[in-house]
């Protein structure tokens, strides 16, 4: 099956800092989503972005499908941004979301 690699595995930020999270995948995809898992375990949808660039407030994401990677940008980080960020993809000829191992982000005040 498709392999999804996220980097870095852990990220510690000072409040106000910017950061970039990366997701590499091993095959062509027709679906890519970024999620934020909050401390209560809830998976919050951030972006549905199989290709192109999207922005939502302080967060933005870019997927370059031809090069098999996606980036999630966090600007002016806040303590509420802490949690685990997951990238999940669906490869062609498949239907289930395959998840990366996640990036654990800790934002310190």
């Amino acid at each position, binding site marked *: 099956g498709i392999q999804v690699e996220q980097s870095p595995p852990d990220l510690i930020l000072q409040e106000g800092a910017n950061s970039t999270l990366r997701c590499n995948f091993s095959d062509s995809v*027709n*679906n890519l*989503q970024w*999620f934020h898992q909050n401390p*209560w*375990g*809830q*998976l919050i*949808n951030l972006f*549905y972005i*199989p290709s192109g660039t999207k922005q939502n407030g302080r967060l933005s994401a870019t997927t370059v499908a031809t090069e098999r990677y996606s980036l999630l940008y966090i600007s002016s980080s806040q303590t509420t941004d802490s949690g685990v960020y*997951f990238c*999940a993809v*669906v490869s062609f000829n*498949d*239907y*289930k*979301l*395959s*998840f*990366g*191992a*996640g990036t654990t982000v800790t934002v310190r005040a």
Partner: protein
Amino acid sequence: GAGVSQSPSNKVTEKGKDVELRCDPISGHTALYWYRQSLGQGLEFLIYFQGNSAPDKSGLPSDRFSAERTGGSVSTLTIQRTQQEDSAVYLCASSLASEVTEAFFGQGTRLTVV
């Protein structure tokens, strides 16, 4: 409801007992997924339902696990003769179709087997 609803939120059960976990997908969503997340781990696919098609059960870890979806809506995941290694958060997701639409997750059921 507005989102995917799972119940119960928490379940503590004794080893060897059977448990049932429920998922109410978003109204109109035909695709439904179950995933499992063990402590500190990523998400592991369990089972997939799409409309009236036969479900994909390829992710179920053993024959103690089963799931059904009644009337194309509510789904129940059943774990028989629970073991301590079944302790995890069980997450349900739904989407409008299947692979090309956005999936939304419920809040999960935290299962603890003692």
